[in-house]
Structures are given as C-alpha cells and as structure tokens.
C-alpha cells in the first residue's frame, strides 16, 4: 500500500489518493498525472490494457480510472477479466471514456460492478471531485 494514500484504518485519506490511470492516450495520462500530483495524489499509469489489468491485480488502488476504447485489450476486456476472477466489485473503477455509449450500456456496466463513470470531456474540477467521491464512497 502506498504511503501517500495515507489510509487511516479502513478510511481513505481523500487528500492523498492512490490512483491508477489506464488509458492509451499518452497525452491525457501524462497531463492528468501532472494535475493529480499537483493535488498531492499518487498516480500509476498503464497505456495498455493488459498492463492495466496486471496492475489492478497486483496492487490495491484507491480508485482506477479506466478508458474503454483501447487497441487490442480494451476496457471491456479488463472488466470481463476482473468479473471472471470475482475482482470487479473489490476495486473502485471509474469508466473514463470518450466513446459513444448509451445510458443503457453505462447502467449495465454499473450493474456489473463498475463503481461509476465519467464521460470525456469533463471539467477538471468535476473530474477531481468525482474521483474523490468514488474513492471515499
């Protein structure tokens, strides 16, 4: 467990979150990391789906930002893999996507065990508050 996440017992310190970002868009992951680190959070980045899945399985993160549209091993594949290992509900996963996705499909993802979703583009402050809200929920 990362020191910077400063977990107090079962409580999560919302000022020092341990965040995993899985997104193939390197511009976004780099800038988002800079932004979140400015806010004193710790970020781990995976620009490929399989690497992201491995990181979820290996380490505990306060929250995972998961992009859906990625080449080869996409966000759906990660969700499916976690589901098959009964690990989906143990992780706080926020689907973070620019894909055209219907409300029906978003609801389906939440029913399957995804914690919440954020549709790109989103205001940076709203993004942060959503991350904190999900991590501490």
């Amino acid at each position, binding site marked *: 467990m990362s020191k910077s996440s400063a977990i107090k017992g079962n409580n999560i310190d919302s000022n020092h979150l341990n965040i995993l970002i899985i997104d193939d868009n390197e511009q976004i992951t780099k800038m988002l990391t800079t932004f979140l680190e400015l806010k004193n959070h710790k970020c781990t980045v995976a620009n490929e789906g399989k690497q992201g899945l491995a990181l979820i399985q290996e380490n505990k993160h306060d929250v995972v930002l998961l992009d859906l549209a*990625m080449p080869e091993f996409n966000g759906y594949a990660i969700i499916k893999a976690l589901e098959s290992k009964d690990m989906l509900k143990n992780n706080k996963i926020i689907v973070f996507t620019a894909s055209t996705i219907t*409300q029906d*499909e978003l609801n389906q993802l939440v029913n399957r065990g995804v914690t919440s979703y954020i549709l790109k583009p989103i205001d940076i402050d709203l993004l942060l508050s959503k991350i904190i809200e999900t991590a501490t929920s």
Partner: protein
Amino acid sequence: MTIDALEERMTELDSPINELSRLLVKYDLTPNQAKVYLYLSKIGIKTASDVSKSLRIPRTETYHLLSTLQQKGIIFSVFGKPTKFNAVGIDESLVILVNNEKNRINELETGKESIIKLWKSIPKYAGNKEKAEDNKFQTLQGRNSILVKLEQMIKESSENILVLGTDSDFKKFHHTDFSNLLKKTKSELKILTDYSNKGIHVFEDIPSKKIKKLDDKNREEFCFIIKDDNEVIFFMTNSELKDMRAMWTDSKTFVTTLRSLFSLIWKKAHYIDESNVESLLGSEITYEHRLREIEQEKIILNYLQKNFKLLEHNPGAKK
C-alpha cells in the same frame, strides 16, 4: 342416438361449431356454407328441407348453399326423391378447399399476362400522358396488405434496406417470407431494434453485425423500413393484426428525412453483439471520439498552464 338427439346435442355444442365455422371461413366458405357443411358432416345424409329446418336458413338459400358446396366438391348428393345430401370427410374437404384456393391463385397468375396484353392494346388518350412524379402515397391496412408490400420492397431492393423498429413491432411477420427475404437479400442490410440474445426474435437468423441496438428513448416512437433510399413504409398503428396501418411513399422529402433519422440513430447505436462493440472500440475510433479526447486534453492543459503561470509568478507557492 337418434337424429333428433344428435341435433339437440349440436345445439349444445354451439360454441365449437361457431369456432369451426369461423375457421372454415378462412378457406373461402361463407358462414352459412360452413354451417351447412358442418351440419351434414356431423348429422349425415339429409334432404335440403331437413337442412333448412334444422339450421333455420330459408329454403331457397339452402338450395343455393348446397349447390355451391357441391361445386366446391365438399358435399355430394345421393340419388333419390327427394334428393339427399352428405358431406365429404373433413380431412378430404380441407385438402379440396386448399387446392381450390391454389388453383384460383394459379389462374390469377396466368391471367395476369392476358390482362396486361389487353390493357396495352387500348390506346392511350392525350389527357393520360401526365407522368406520376415521385410523390406517391399509399395507405395500407391489415397485416397481409402490409406484408405483401414489405416483401415486394425487399425483393426489388438492389442497394440497401434499413429497418428500424422493436422486435414486437415486427413480431407479426415472424415465420413469414419477410424475415427469410431479409436474411437472403443481397442489398446492404441495417437493422435497428431492441434485439437481445435472450428469447426468440424475428431477426434471430440475421447476422449480428447487421443489427444495432435501439436504445430506450427511440423504442416506442418509430417503426419504418427504407428501401434503396427511394421508398419507405412507415407504420402508423402497429397494435392488432386487423388494425395495423402503414403508409408507403416514394416522396423524396419523406424518405430523406427518415433516412437522416436512421443514420443519426445508427451512428450512435452499438452492435447487439457486445464482443463486436468491444472489438470496434479497440479499432474503430471515430472522429467524434477523437474530438472528445482532444477537448479533454485541452481542459487539462488549460488548467496546468494557469497553475504553472501562477507558480512562475509566485515561486513560493505550494506545488
């Protein structure tokens, strides 16, 4: 059992007899023809007078009914005075009635060419030269009329067929040529429906890559089929089989409007097969998708630029 007792028993069995009469009407019998046939087939050999009295049908009409049923081949007369009648068995009668209908259809088919030939032999009058422009409208009522039009559209299509509607909208055409023709069509087929992989569906034999999911908000409002971007059939009431009403048109404005609506919904919809969606998400990043990503990059970048400017001007500020 005496004949009188049997007749009484038949009166008691009014409900199944009425149901049978109703079913026989589908085989081109009038309700009274069906009644007479059923009466004879259950009671056995009878005179015209007996039939008339038992069924309370006027004598003249009874003679006419018996004569028609004989012509159809499902009852026969027994020589004697007075003439008596009896019915052919129900199995054989049904075969005869079906064959009669088949023959009638064949006659209609063969007669088609003679009618066209005759029609062509009549010279056109000057006043009839006005050509019908692409703005024809046709209101169709009842499942059969709609089905015939749908089948004609699919058969004649050479470019594309766009179908929008729920599975329940098209359920009335299940096990008809409609779904078979859609399956076999060489035109580009796109279907927007609420199909899911559970249960039996009208479109179940159609490859899933041709079907996209119709979301909740579009489910109840529209149901239409567009052929080759030049004809559309639009369902107005789609509840009961008899009350089903649809409008067919080749109006360019109408077709173009519905075509645009279809394209818009199709673009935003996902394929019914989730694995298909998943693979598309990996490989087919749309222009809209990329725009949203760029917009997100811009938002974060703007924030960072502002903060770094603040840091430059105020180096002591906490990172």
